[in-house]
């Protein structure tokens, strides 16, 4: 099946040289594709390139259309939604308001239906509707960030290190929901340092090192190969958050 | 290129001072007058560099301390109670003490709140001056006798005041440099970056803030004293809230983190409107405003903070270029 998102020779950077170079990747619908990499490998840079907020070049195709020159809002409208590292919730707005901002493009009826769908995915958010987003726990904020992205009726979700700073139990919940979302027919590109939990829900995986893809294979194969994990990744577990 | 040696730098500095002192023979009197004013604003702004640029406390009320210094000198000189060389330090001390007293309650506030409270001081100062007519001449102002050069030197009062100002400026810069290079400077930086962290690390945040406030007030008072002697006539309106716009512009455009920025800023805020006025009388303020906007857009850290100046600075001090601290 043709993938929803296709990258061929993509570069991305911040204006002074390319941080990410010659990346080729396919993200099909209905499954989770994982991009692993240590700190500084370029994962966030790649994501930002895809969502259009930094400079990029090369072939970037969303459902056959070349989006490499599109503006961020156009890319979002086409269904590619990026959930940034650190979650990016709007702290001074309530949970409900966060969802409303994201869902503002929908028609009135569409909004209701989408919101119900999101709250079904994340029941916790229904309970916390009137609470300030800034006052929630990390796990709840992560759920809100993903829920918000879902409000935009995405065809593909880019998730940047959703496990960061979360306790193992919460992590499991979040990743289960991610798998569920994939099962509902959405393509997911998951970027992570934490190999164990992400490979468990993925079909395919790739490894990013110093801005380039060094390995691409079935997730199961990479998970089974301890050499890969040890060589390229920091040990799974809490790590210091730095920007890549 | 190798960095210049210390001797070379000192020699260059001395040369610079000598050239500056040669002003009366290089410039016509009216230009000299303007230069004096530039340096006066510069001296006052040095204090703000210390308070706002280093310690991170924004004050838009130092016009009051400037005015206090001006009136102190004006009263002493007009009543012939003291000569200039005594009146100036007296003005600085009076202003500094007032800054110390005002700072104590005021510095409990921070950020914009502090700015508003200092603005309140700036608003009230001219009103108070106008109340005490016996002392200050009230609304009508106070005339200051021209300061003649001592020892029979063949210098006009304008030239003499200019040279006094140059010397005071140099001393003020050196003093500022000495104050901020050691522990005080590091403490102020810590306060600026994060008060809570500094406190946790044992820095007496309140004490250092108050000290910075007092020092900056003293600088403003010194500038004000020079102003009174240079201009020859002072009135309350000159020391209102709007004067802080000049100081703020000088500090920000020159570079709030750098002592030299204060002097560059002082020159900018006096000379740009001056030159603009020669180009077009009607558009002076417009040109000045546009220049300010352009300067801050191209050099958001001020002129002395611009990347190219920073490279030169590092070359001079022999520091390897690396990441700028904050």
């Amino acid at each position, binding site marked *: 099946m043709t993938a929803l998102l296709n990258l061929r020779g993509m570069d991305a950077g911040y204006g002074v040289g390319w941080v990410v170079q010659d990346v080729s990747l396919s993200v099909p619908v209905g499954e989770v594709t994982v991009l692993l990499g240590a700190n500084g490998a370029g994962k966030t840079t790649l994501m930002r390139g895809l969502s259009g907020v930094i400079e990029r070049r090369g072939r970037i195709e969303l459902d056959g259309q070349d989006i490499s020159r599109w503006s961020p809002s156009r890319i*979002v409208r086409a269904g590619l939604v990026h959930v*940034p590292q650190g979650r990016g919730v*709007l702290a001074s707005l309530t949970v409900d308001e966060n969802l409303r901002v994201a869902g503002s493009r929908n028609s009135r009826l569409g909004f209701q239906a989408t919101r119900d769908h999101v709250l079904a995915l994340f029941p916790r958010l229904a309970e916390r509707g009137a609470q300030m987003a800034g006052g929630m726990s990390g796990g709840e904020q992560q759920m809100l960030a993903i829920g*918000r992205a879902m409000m935009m009726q995405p065809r593909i979700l880019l998730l940047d290190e959703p496990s960061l700073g979360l306790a193992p139990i919460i992590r499991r919940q979040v990743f289960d929901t991610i798998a569920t979302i994939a099962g509902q027919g959405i393509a997911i590109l998951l970027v992570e340092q934490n190999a164990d939990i992400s490979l468990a829900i993925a079909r395919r995986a790739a490894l990013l090192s110093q801005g380039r893809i060094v390995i691409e294979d079935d997730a199961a194969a990479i998970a089974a190969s301890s050499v890969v994990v040890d060589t390229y990744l920091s040990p799974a577990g809490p790590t210091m958050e730095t920007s890549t | 290129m190798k960095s210049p040696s210390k001797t070379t730098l000192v020699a260059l500095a001395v040369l610079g001072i000598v050239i500056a002192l040669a002003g009366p023979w290089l410039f016509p009197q009216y230009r000299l007058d303007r230069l004096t004013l530039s340096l006066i604003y510069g001296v006052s702004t040095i204090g703000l560099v210390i308070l706002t640029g280093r310690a991170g406390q924004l004050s838009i009320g130092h016009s009051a301390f400037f005015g206090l210094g001006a009136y102190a000198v004006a009263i002493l000189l007009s009543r012939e109670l003291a000569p200039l060389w005594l009146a100036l330090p007296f003005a600085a001390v009076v202003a500094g003490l007032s800054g110390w007293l005002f700072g104590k*309650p005021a510095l409990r506030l921070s950020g914009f709140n502090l700015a508003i409270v200092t603005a*309140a001081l700036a608003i009230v100062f001219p009103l108070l001056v106008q109340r005490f007519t016996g002392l200050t001449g009230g609304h009508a102002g106070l005339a200051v006798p021209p300061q003649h050069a001592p020892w029979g030197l063949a210098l006009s009062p304008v030239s003499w005041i200019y040279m006094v100002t140059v010397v005071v400026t140099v001393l003020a810069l050196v003093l500022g440099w000495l104050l901020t290079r050691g522990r005080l400077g590091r403490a102020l930086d810590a306060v600026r970056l994060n008060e809570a962290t500094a406190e946790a690390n044992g820095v007496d945040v309140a004490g250092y803030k108050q000290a910075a406030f007092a020092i900056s007030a003293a600088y403003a008072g010194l500038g004000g004293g020079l102003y009174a002697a240079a201009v020859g006539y002072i009135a309350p309106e000159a020391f209102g809230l709007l004067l802080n716009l000049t100081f*703020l512009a000088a500090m920000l455009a020159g570079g709030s983190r750098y002592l030299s920025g204060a002097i560059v800023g002082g020159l900018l805020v006096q000379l740009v409107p001056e030159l603009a006025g020669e180009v077009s009388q009607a558009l002076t303020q417009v040109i000045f405003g546009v220049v*300010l906007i352009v300067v801050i857009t191209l050099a958001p*850290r001020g002129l002395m903070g611009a990347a190219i100046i920073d490279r030169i600075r590092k070359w001079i001090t022999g520091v390897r270029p690396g990441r700028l601290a904050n």
Partner: protein
Amino acid sequence: MILLLQQIIDGAANGALYAAMGVAIVLVYRATGVLNFAQGEMALVSTFVIWQISAWGLPIYVAAVIGIAFSFVFGAAIERGVMRPLRNKPPLASVLAALGLFLVCNQVCALIWPGAQREFPALASPVTFELAGLRLGAETILLFGVLAAQAVFLWLFFRHTTWGLKMRAAADNADAAVYIGVDTGRMFMLGWGLAAVFGCLAGLLVAPTILLTTGMMFPLLIYGLCAATLGGLTNPFGAIVGGVIIGVVENLTATYVPAIGTDLKIASPLLLIFLVLLLRPQGLFGVKQVVRA
């Protein structure tokens, strides 16, 4: 007793003017995080434009509508042209840009409309209502009406409209807002445009009471900043309450405290603000900011 109440009413009337400017300042701050020291002078430009249009013969209300539309465009253009490049730079850089703007706007008005004061046509008829010995002018009633409308509008706007939510989103976290489809640039321009409209309204309401001169807005700006600070910079309703309190305190101390009198009357509200801020740094209605070590 009657005199006291009258003084309170007169003070509140002044305070309402301060509040009008204060609301504009709060709006810019909430929308873009910038304290716009040029708010008054921008309003001055719009007010002069309105005067000019009415001087050409159009009725004042028509001129006002045109002027308000102009102020919106003007405010949005200033945000886009002058403030946007400084968005991610040190905050004091925006302050200096605002100061530059202050100077430019002020002198442009002086150039286009040189000379001394001009009379500004009143929006309300010069009727004074009297009730139980207390006098209240029609302009004051209009002023309070406008303020109330502003407060209601802003409350509805920020809580219940998409644009209001998006503006809050852009102000809260512009980088994150982009990811959920908010056009942050447009929101910033909208914020400045709206604030300029509010500033223009303040100018419209103050100009008939004092003569239209280039110096008239600066004192109002100061009062406006004080009102906004007292009320808590993030709350427009706070600015209104703050402004009225300032006006009343000022008037009462001027009348009843001879040591202060009319020349020093501004000192009392300033002192009040100082005290309030010492006890409640976030202002009367503001939200406390948490700073972590």
